């Protein structure tokens, strides 16, 4: 139970708190604040007593303590004085905590003195005086300590100290040397680690010229404009402008970005600095920053020496991003082999545009070239949290360097001149042309691409047909060949999305094919073989059972014939039944020219090509069908739904895309919208599919002989080109397949018989009783290197019973 005394205490405390809160008294100090200096002084005093005792073996504690309390002598007297002052201060505080009058008086006094000092001196003068006072206090304390150490007066101690330091100088130097040695170890380590990754080519080292860049004329023209400014900067600077200092070249791999940067260096005659993509991947924090600083130091030097420098960051996406991606920049979204849509026939029937739309990506960036999968192409250093690996401050350092070229530089310039009252000299104009190349512009940091750093962004896309023609001519000019200009034109038409790299590779592969045949001159069939090799890839080395091979051949033949007959803006590049990683075979139609929009009639045709497999299987196998049509139907349904719901190509104008959230969601693709087919929209899509299936059935029925012919060719050759399919359809001689025998009714009848026997076996599950008819065909031609195409004898069943 609280006593009356404690109640009184509590009441007093509450009153005190109230007054303090109202600003009428000083706020009460906590006990620690009240005592801390007193305790400190007492502790120091005891230390001095202890020190005196330690220095004199005959001195006892009592006398030592008494000595330090003597006001006439002893170092402790200052502490006693301080202790007295501190006690007085605390008494003053205590009074002002309890007495309103005392607090008011003290506040008035100090307020006046504060006012007077403010009037007497400006804030800066007061700051300087305070700083001088602190320095003097520090010197005084040091002097007292030195006086104690040297057993002399503080002033003498202060003057003796330099002599002691001088005597100790060797030891101090040794200590400093050891410290520097430790620091130098780190310095050397970082210095070594920050080397490399940057190659400098002097003017004349590079012989590449713009004439070597084929098929990118529009980009070359614009880049040349930049070069004009670099060579003659006054032409723009005299008019108040500035030389654009940065170019981003983005586009699919192999389109000649690096070549173009080399050509720029070769044309200008400025030094060319090549920065490796991996230059900024580091083990330790700070190394990347050192590299960036070292790189720009070198660039500035070269820029001043040669009047300009060109630096090229290859694969600039390796510099990474700090989290955000480039907004508004077209991403390079392309064909993804790992996509769920890359099934049996997958995307190959669709235009690149449609593929992109089905994936919900930006069609403008459609790119059928395989995109690199995985997060990024580099191994992130341990502990680096930022994606892109150029993290750990490297990107920030680069950004700073790129926009910090106009600052005064140098210790003498910035510090010494300023100390002497001179203004630092502005830096010379460092004329640098920073070129970055990437195929993933979306992975770049937005800050990197702002004007002032990267002023111009050029898309280095796929070469136009003329460009491809020129490129093929260029590469064929380097080898011995018998290719006619018409064939080169045809080849350019056949390879609409070819890049410089793929074209060079195709010519090289053609040469390999020729060399394998013991020739050194490339012929047109060599080119076609090489093209097939490149488009189909190596076989898995497995073979179908006979009845399955026939079924797959007919399946693909239905796709091929329907595509040939309905898709007039495309031409079949390859058809194969060679088993690949995820497909049993495929037909690959490619657009004759790059196109950016698709039309309803084209989508109808695409759906027909997709459903042709199901319609054909049912037609040829008496209503039976396989599961191999799964992905075809998925694509057909997706297109049909998109036509109905998004593209206004059906009975509805409104787009469901407007109601989708989030924007990038794909309910059809990811399976979240399971009931769509039950809706009116789904029913309309289904009706479209049925209509088109019916149209396809009529088409295939009408061209039954052609389907059997293409199927037979596929079964015989495994892989045939689009020109062979054209030859079969037109019953003429193709590059590989002779289509003329398919015009003979008895051979078609033979194929029918063969098919009927296969169909019969299909239901009974036995081997085919008949061999593949082989009249008038030349199956000994090996289309795919390293892949055995069985001749007709091999195709014959082992047991014909």
């Amino acid at each position, binding site marked *: 139970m609280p006593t009356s005394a404690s109640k009184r205490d509590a009441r007093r405390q509450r009153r005190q708190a109230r007054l303090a809160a109202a600003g009428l008294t000083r706020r009460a100090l906590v*006990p*620690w604040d*009240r*005592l801390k200096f*007193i*305790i400190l002084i*007492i502790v120091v005093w005891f230390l001095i007593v202890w020190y005196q005792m330690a*220095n*004199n*073996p*005959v*001195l006892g504690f*009592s*006398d030592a*303590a*008494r*000595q*330090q*309390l*003597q006001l006439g002598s002893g170092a402790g007297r200052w502490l006693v004085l301080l202790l007295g002052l501190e006690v007085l201060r605390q008494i003053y505080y205590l009074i002002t905590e309890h007495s309103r009058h005392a607090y008011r008086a003290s506040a008035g006094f100090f307020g006046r003195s504060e006012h007077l000092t403010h009037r007497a001196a400006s804030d800066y003068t007061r700051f300087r005086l305070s700083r001088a006072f602190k320095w003097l206090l520090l010197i005084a304390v040091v002097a007292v300590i030195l006086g104690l150490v040297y*057993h002399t007066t503080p002033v003498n101690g202060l003057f003796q100290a330099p002599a002691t330091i001088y005597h100790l100088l060797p030891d101090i130097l040794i200590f400093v040397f050891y410290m520097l040695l430790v620091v130098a170890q780190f310095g050397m380590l970082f210095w070594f680690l920050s080397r490399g990754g940057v190659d400098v080519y002097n003017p004349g080292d590079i012989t590449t010229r713009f004439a070597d860049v084929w098929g990118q004329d529009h980009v070359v023209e614009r880049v040349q404009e930049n070069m004009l400014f670099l060579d003659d900067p006054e032409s723009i600077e005299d008019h108040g402008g500035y030389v654009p200092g940065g170019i981003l070249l983005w586009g699919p791999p192999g389109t000649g970005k690096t070549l173009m940067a080399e050509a720029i260096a070769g044309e200008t005659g400025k030094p060319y600095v090549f920065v490796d993509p991996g230059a900024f991947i580091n083990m330790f924090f700070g190394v990347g920053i050192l590299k960036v600083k070292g790189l720009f130091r070198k660039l500035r030097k070269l820029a001043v020496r040669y009047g300009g420098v060109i630096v090229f960051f290859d694969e600039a996406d390796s510099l990474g991003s700090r989290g955000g991606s480039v907004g508004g920049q077209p991403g390079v979204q392309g064909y993804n082999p790992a996509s769920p849509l890359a099934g049996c026939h997958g995307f190959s029937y669709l235009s690149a545009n449609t593929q992109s739309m089905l994936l919900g990506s930006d069609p403008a960036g459609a790119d059928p070239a395989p995109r690199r999968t995985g997060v990024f192409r580099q191994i992130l250093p341990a502990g680096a949290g930022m994606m892109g690996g150029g993290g750990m401050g490297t990107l920030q350092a680069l950004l700073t360097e790129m926009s910090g070229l106009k600052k005064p530089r140098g210790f003498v310039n910035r510090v010494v001149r300023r100390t002497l009252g001179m203004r630092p000299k502005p830096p010379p104009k460092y004329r640098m042309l920073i070129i970055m190349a990437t195929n993933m512009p979306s992975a770049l940091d937005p800050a990197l691409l702002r004007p002032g750093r990267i002023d111009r962004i050029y898309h280095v896309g796929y070469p136009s047909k003329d460009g491809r023609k020129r490129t093929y001519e260029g590469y064929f000019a380097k080898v011995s060949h018998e290719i006619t200009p018409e064939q080169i034109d045809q080849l350019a038409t056949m390879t609409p999305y070819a890049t410089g790299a793929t074209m060079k590779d195709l010519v090289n592969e053609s040469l390999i094919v020729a060399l394998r045949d013991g020739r050194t001159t490339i012929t047109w069939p060599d080119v076609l073989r090489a093209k097939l090799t490149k488009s189909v890839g190596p076989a898995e080395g497995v073979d179908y059972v006979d009845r399955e091979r026939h079924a797959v051949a007919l399946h693909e033949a239905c796709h091929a014939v329907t595509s040939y007959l309905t898709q007039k803006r495309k031409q079949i590049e390859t058809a194969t039944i060679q088993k690949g990683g995820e497909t049993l075979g495929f037909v690959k139609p490619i657009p004759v020219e790059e196109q950016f929009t698709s039309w309803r009639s084209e989508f109808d045709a695409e759906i027909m090509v997709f459903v042709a497999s199901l319609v054909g299987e049912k037609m040829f196998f008496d209503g039976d069908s396989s599961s191999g049509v799964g992905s075809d139907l998925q694509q057909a349904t997706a297109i049909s739904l998109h036509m109905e719901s998004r593209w206004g190509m059906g009975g509805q104008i409104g787009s469901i895309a407007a109601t989708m959230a989030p924007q990038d969601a794909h309910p059809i693709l990811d399976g979240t919208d399971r009931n769509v087919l039950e809706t009116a929209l789904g029913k309309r899509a289904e009706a479209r599919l049925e209509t088109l299936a019916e149209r396809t059935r009529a088409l295939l029925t009408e061209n039954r002989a052609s389907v059997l012919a293409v199927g037979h060719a596929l079964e015989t050759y495994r892989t045939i080109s689009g020109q062979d399919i054209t030859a079969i359809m037109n019953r003429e001689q193709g590059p590989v397949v002779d289509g003329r025998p398919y015009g003979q009714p008895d051979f078609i009848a033979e194929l029918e018989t063969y098919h009927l026997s296969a169909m019969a076996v299909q239901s009974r599950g036995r081997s085919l009783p008949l061999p593949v008819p082989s009249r008038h065909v030349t199956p000994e031609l090996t289309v795919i290197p390293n892949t055995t195409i069985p001749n007709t004898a091999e195709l014959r069943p082992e047991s014909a019973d």
Partner: protein
Amino acid sequence: MKRQLRLTAAAMLSAGAALALLAGCGAPSYTYAADSADHAYFKVPASWQQVSPAKLAEVQNAFLTNSAAGAAGGAFTWSRAYAAAAKPAITSLLTGSASPVVYASVQNLRDSLRASLSFDYMRDLLFPVTSEAREEAAAEGERLTGFDLVASSTITAPGGVRGINELFEYDVNGEPDAFDQTVLTNSDTTKLYLLLVQCYQGCFASHAAQIKAVIDSFTVRGS
């Protein structure tokens, strides 16, 4: 918690105040003389007065230069003298004092002496104490009488410090004068430390406790 803090603070303050009171009851009871450079220390009662350095130098020049102490080495590196009397006469600083006088000095040993320094040399440093020295002095015509050796001992202290302590009497001005002489040297025999306390026999007896405290406090720290 707060209460505990307050109690602690109060306790600390009380302890500090108590110490301050304890220490501040009066002046120190002894005066401490220290030669930190040579590590020599002793104390004298606080009431004793220090002899001025000028007077001390005069005494050293007048009396010590001709003694063994004078021959022992060069200049005195450190010396102190304290007297119980307010103004001791120069002549009574080393002999014939009616009140206790203490003299201490440190000097460097000459190289020639370092090898031959003996306890007897130390004993005869100021006055002939050993029989040989007394005989030699008598032969040289010294008229010192009334010699009485009261106590003699050797000292071995930590750190290689060693020496002698002699309590003897001579008649001075017809009255027995008591001398307590402590001579020490350091481990490498480079320094000679001397402490002499003297006054007439009656005075010595009456101030025995104070004199003992002074002699006992004389410390040389070995290396």
